[in-house]
């Protein structure tokens, strides 16, 4: 009974993710695309929680959805110069797109096939401790370098946006 419910939840969430992802690509309106992308991210987050990776799920809600809010603001500000709905920039490079899609599928399937799947093993109930231990003990150097890089990018962005003299 509970297994059946679990499968049902999985397929419902997977359907939402695929449908919204398709909507992101096909929508003619940039803002609609960005908002559908949020729905897609929320679906992915629910999937993470369904797989008991609750920290990753919450992260997905927080960062990606918040990021999309910024994206929508950017989309509105950059595209709404004239009246009418902001358009999605479409073009006709179909062959290039097909080539890139085939390349992407090949790379992804190679990665998926070559990754060993730890099947049926123990899953920690508390993923936060393990993640914190990894980030702040084992990989502290990489973590700090990434943090410094992001800080530099942030300061750089502010200076670029404000221009000379003002900053």
């Amino acid at each position, binding site marked *: 009974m509970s297994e059946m*419910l679990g499968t049902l939840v999985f397929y419902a969430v997977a359907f939402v993710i695929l449908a919204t992802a398709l909507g992101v690509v096909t929508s003619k*309106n940039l803002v609609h695309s960005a908002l559908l992308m949020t729905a897609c991210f929320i679906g992915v987050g629910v999937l993470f929680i369904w797989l008991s990776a609750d*920290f990753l799920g*919450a992260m997905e*809600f927080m960062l990606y*959805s*918040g990021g999309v809010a910024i994206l929508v*603001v950017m989309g*509105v500000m950059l595209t709404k110069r004239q009246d009418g709905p902001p358009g999605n920039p479409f073009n006709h490079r179909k062959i290039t797109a097909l080539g890139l899609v085939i390349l992407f599928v090949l790379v992804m399937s190679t990665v998926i096939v070559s990754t060993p799947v730890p099947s049926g093993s123990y899953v920690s109930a508390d993923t936060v401790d393990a993640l914190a231990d990894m980030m702040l003990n084992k990989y502290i150097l990489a973590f700090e370098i990434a943090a410094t890089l992001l800080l530099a990018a942030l300061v750089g962005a502010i200076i670029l946006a404000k221009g000379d003299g003002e900053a």
Partner: protein
Amino acid sequence: MHSGILYSTAQALREILMSFVGIPIIVDIIMTVICATILLLIMATSALVFTLGERKICAFIQVRIGPNRVGPGGLLQSVADMIKLMDKEDIVPRGIDKWLWVLSPILLLVPSALIYAFFPFDDGVILADVNVGLFLLIAITSQTILPFLMGGYASNSKYSLIGGMRTVAQMLGYEVPMVFALMGIVMLTGSLKMSAIVEAQSNVWFIVLQPLAFFIYIVTALVESNRPPFNLVEGESEIIAGPFTEYTGMRWALFFLAEFSNLMCIGILTTTLFLGGWHGPDFLPGFAWFWIKTFICVLFYQWVGWTFPRLRIDTMLSFGWKVLLPIALVNVLLTGVGIYIYNIM
């Protein structure tokens, strides 16, 4: 094991259901539906009570009488208001983005209702006591930004769009210091679980150990829930009503239902995170203490709202980034040093 009236009532109900139905998962589903219904009722009632309370308190602070015609002492004013709102014409402006415009007030209610699942009302009385409770709660609260922006964009009105942009700027900007302020609590508790956070305050409340975080939380909570003096999103004197300028009747009421639900949420969160949750002297049950503290917090937030004038958007944003965020980071540092010293002593 857990004690307390609410927990034992739920257990008794579960046993009665178990003897009638027999299949555990169906009993689970029925219990969840019952709990969710109670939570939604609390949310809807709070909006009804708080609208009246807000007007009465506002009147008291401004030396007026406030609503006093409908019912004894104006008690039925919010009921009359609700009937009026349902009766109003549903105006759909031309040139809007129909789907986004319709969905915005509905979607706004979803996160507001969802976070009630993470509140510990009494010992063991919490719908979803997950490991990353506090973090998930903040993540879900941050979803309220997008419906505001959706409404602001879809209304195809300048005031709405400005309001939507302000929402993004102020809510995202103040979320950062809030998360860092709450980090101090998480460091002291050593867990993100809501029940563990309340449990850790059984002797000393976190308001004593984290006064700086408490101050930052009060400010950011007012911003996140769009309460005055930080309700720049809907600043009437500048941008009419922000994202809800083009909404009428019940659609407009949904925005206000969400706002009052959020007001109660920040009251509950202040109680849970800083004021010891359901802990209190034994002569009252846990949930009574919980509600007493929550209502005191809500009163406090309303008092602050009606006392201070509204800020200007640029001063407010620079206050968030240049003052609150450094204080929050210093608080994290101080907490870390404090824990280290406490451990070696």
